[in-house]
Each structure stands twice: as C-alpha cells, then as structure tokens.
C-alpha cells in the first residue's frame, strides 16, 4: 500500500514538473495554457490520490480535494484562454490553423 501510494505521488510530481517546464519553454500563450492545464490537473490528481492511498483513513477527504481541483482548474484556464483571444494576443508564427473566427462571438476579433 505504501509503495503503491509513493509511486502514484511520484507520477503526479513528475507531471507537475513537466507542466511547469512547458510553461517556460513553449512559445506562445495558447501552448502555455495547454501545458498549464492538462499536465498540472493530471499531476495534482495523482499526487492527492496517492496521499489518500498511503494513508487509507484520509482517502475520502483526498478524493474531495481532487474533485474540487478537477472542477475549478479547467474553469479558470478556459476563462484565461477566452480572455487572451478576445484581448488580441497574437498566435505564434509557426501556428497552422485558427478556426475561432468561424464562431459568431469571435467574429469581430481582429485577424491575428
């Protein structure tokens, strides 16, 4: 039980570090949002549930913490991505496609 929990915490911590590394290395806001959302949500879930596995009496509260992380982190990152698009942050030069102008609520944002 102890070893399995420690392995889960190790996987989570590794993903948290990779997400932060992507925050530094990736070229523009949208790529950084991807690294900062998916990697860190997954890593935080694994770390918190690993703590719940190591101490079985704590499992339900750890599950509650991970549930709230799973609810609130995508909300804030989605709001940030929408705000970046609407306030006119340019895409990276190597970007291939931008489909957002097909949607009516983004139709009057300037061409990036």
């Amino acid at each position, binding site marked *: 039980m102890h070893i399995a929990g420690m392995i889960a915490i190790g996987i989570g*911590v*590794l993903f948290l570090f990779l997400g932060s590394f992507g925050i*530094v290395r990736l070229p523009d806001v949208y790529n*950084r949002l991807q690294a900062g959302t998916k990697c860190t949500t997954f890593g935080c879930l694994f770390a918190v549930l690993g703590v719940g596995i190591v101490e079985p009496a704590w499992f339900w*509260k750890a599950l509650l913490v991970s549930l709230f992380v799973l609810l609130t982190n995508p*909300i804030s990152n989605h709001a940030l991505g929408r705000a970046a698009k609407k306030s006119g*942050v340019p895409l990276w030069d190597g970007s291939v496609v931008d489909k957002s102008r097909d949607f009516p609520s983004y139709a009057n944002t300037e061409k990036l």
Partner: protein
Amino acid sequence: MIVSIFLLVIGAAIVLCLIRLIKGPTATDRAVALDTVTTVTTALLVILALVFKRYIYLDVALVYAVLMFIGSVAIARFLEKGI
C-alpha cells in the same frame, strides 16, 4: 527520504513558474503562470500534510482548491473588458 526528493522537485517547478512570471511578454502569460503555481501549491500542501502526519492540515488544501479560481476568473474578466 523519497518524500524530500518530491518536495525539491516541486520547489523547482515553482521556481520555473516564477521565471515565466518575471519574463512573460503579456499580462495573460503572467496570469497563466500564477494559475499553474496555484495548482502546484495545492499538491505541495497535501504532500506536506503527509510529511507532518496531521489530518487537519488537509483542510487548508481544500480551501485552496475551492477558492483559488476566483482571482484568475477576475483577471480574465478584466482582460476581456467586461468584469
């Protein structure tokens, strides 16, 4: 012993986010770095509760996980001119 390695790796992750918070060209970059460091901090608090062996310390992480998105959402609503 292995928990100390985890703590040091998480500290390195916070330092990387601080680098992006200093360098970031636009305000949105800095907001993304702040949001990432919030999530990393939640995991750090839960692991520290395991280190100190106190059940009650998980409540702090719970409050973090519930309340932290308010700041990011306020910044985002300000950036799209609509608060």
